[in-house]
């Protein structure tokens, strides 16, 4: 930096460490709680050092043991969450790539109309039209199905918009070069645009995977069958007994399990994720 004040650097580190501590504390508490027995937690203050029941709790959770409320096995719920998140991520990326390609690289009647139609969906989450959407899904007999869990959540344009923004940054000369090389639109899409979009795709994948995994309100409505509960719902179901009645150790073990896949995705793909997030801004 441009001045010679080491104390400023120390201050910066101190603030950052404090920030990290505050951000990490809830996660730490979660972890500790997941290593205790239910009784140890209920008798405040709960211990702040890990106990020895981690494996027990995780096994119980995975197998669907106790729990004041639902006792569906977490393993199954994790699978549902995983499939849901994957379908949402992959599906959204696929249809968005195609539509963004159409909008950016073609001129056709109603193009602007389509653009705006897609654009309007940009920030309107499913929550604002939750009732009627539920109705539609029900009418289409998609309750309690992966289709019902996923397709309506694919119906927003964030990804289309992001790809459009990305495509606009692809130099015009590349299209020109490939046209001179004799590439058809689909060849260009496959041979040039797709490979170039790799990072954007990866970034979107992370964002959408987490979006899908973290869904709550929607699955709450469209799943009535325990075997179709995503894990987030499962956790909420576990705590319907009032604060002292829940098997918090199991709940927290489940919470840890539920955080793990999205956290892994974020950490492993951090580089793309950050880029993707920042690109969305454009």
């Amino acid at each position, binding site marked *: 930096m441009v001045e010679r004040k080491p104390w400023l650097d120390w201050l910066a580190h101190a603030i950052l460490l404090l920030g990290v501590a505050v951000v990490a504390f809830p996660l730490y508490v979660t972890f500790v709680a997941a290593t205790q027995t239910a009784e140890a937690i209920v008798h405040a203050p709960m211990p702040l050092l890990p106990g020895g029941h981690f494996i027990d709790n995780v096994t119980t959770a995975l197998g669907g043991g106790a729990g004041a409320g639902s006792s569906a096995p977490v393993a199954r719920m994790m699978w549902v969450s995983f499939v849901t998140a994957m379908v949402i991520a992959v599906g959204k990326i696929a249809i968005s790539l195609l539509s963004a390609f159409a909008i950016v690289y073609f001129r056709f009647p109603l193009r602007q109309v389509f653009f705006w139609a897609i654009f309007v969906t940009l920030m309107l989450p499913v929550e604002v039209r939750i009732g009627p959407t539920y109705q539609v899904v029900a009418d289409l007999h998609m309750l309690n199905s992966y289709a019902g869990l996923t397709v309506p959540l694919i119906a927003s344009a964030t990804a289309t918009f992001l790809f459009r923004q990305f495509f606009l940054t692809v130099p015009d*000369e590349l299209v*020109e070069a490939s*046209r*001179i*090389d*004799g590439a058809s639109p689909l*060849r260009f899409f496959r041979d*040039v645009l797709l490979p170039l979009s790799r990072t954007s795709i990866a970034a979107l994948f992370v964002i959408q995977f987490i979006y899908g995994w973290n869904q709550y309100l929607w699955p709450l409505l469209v799943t009535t069958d325990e075997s179709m509960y995503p894990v987030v719902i499962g956790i909420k179901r576990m705590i319907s007994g009032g604060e002292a009645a829940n098997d918090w150790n199991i709940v927290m073990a489940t919470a840890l399990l539920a955080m793990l896949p999205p956290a892994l995705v974020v950490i492993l793909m951090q580089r793309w994720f950050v880029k993707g997030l920042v690109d969305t801004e454009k």
Partner: protein
Amino acid sequence: MAAISIRKLVKRYGHGAKAQQVIHGVDAEVHDGEFVVIVGPSGCGKSTLLRMVAGLEEVSEGEIAIGPRVVNDIEPADRDIAMVFQNYALYPHMSVAENMAYGLKLRKMPKAEIDERVQRAAKILELGHLLARKPRELSGGQRQRVAMGRAIVRDPQVFLFDEPLSNLDAKLRVQTRLEIQKLHRELGVTSLFVTHDQVEAMTLAQRIIVMNGGRIEQIGTPEEVYGQPASTFVASFIGSPAMNLLPGRQQGGQFHIDGAALDVPPGVEGELTLGLRPEHAQLAERGWPLRVEMIEMLGAERLVYGKLGAATPFTLRLDATLPSPQAGDWLHLAFNPLHLHRFDAQTGLRL
């Protein structure tokens, strides 16, 4: 190889009321095997013209023929051309070899032949050891050569270049210029080369097309364009430092500029613009009086900036071996009358 004919070419962007004409009826011929450079200031329509030849822009009016075929309605891929772009437009995710091969692959050429062509081009351009690399692992100059390689393998009738050197640094630019020259000598493919750099135009072209504002100002060999510029525009655009242009009035053997009367050979009388290149004036005992304002040492020569009369700027180019004048000195300038150019005061056209 093929000649290119451009006939009454017009380009408009936009439709209806918002239409904007950027090329105003241009005629030009590029002979078979010729290397022609289009030069002009930014925005004059050079790229537009080139891109119409490539088929990347639609022609609004007029005709473009490559060889015997009018190509107005032919897809770029079918015009048998190759193009080198300013930013090279290499496919970033393909290796050098794949970049070069892509166009051939799309043409369903047998793999063996593709390989052979790529190898040959790589050899010509000394890219052999780079074939497996990705463009981002190459220096600017190497990328440039890959872009040329991609054009060469196609073995097209016409090469089109849109400022292919402007992303290179000065040294590399000179070097690549020489390579392109060599390449053209070897392959002899008809080439149309766009640049806004007059040095590039002068050094590369067999003939130069000077454009300005969507019109052609002059077509000619480098010597013609430099020696007999068709207009003040060409005169000031070609050559560096630019030709001194003195607006004034000729009366008998005198040319009246603001604040002084200069001795000149008699000629057209009245308002006109005189032109004299900086290197065409010499120091002399007597002659045009120049007050020195500033001197720049360039190594082999010095540029002397000064004023003729009250406020007419004049640049003089002196050999560095001559003693340097000082700011404030009065010099006297002599010149060979043959080197004097005269232009119409209104139209700027050569008289």
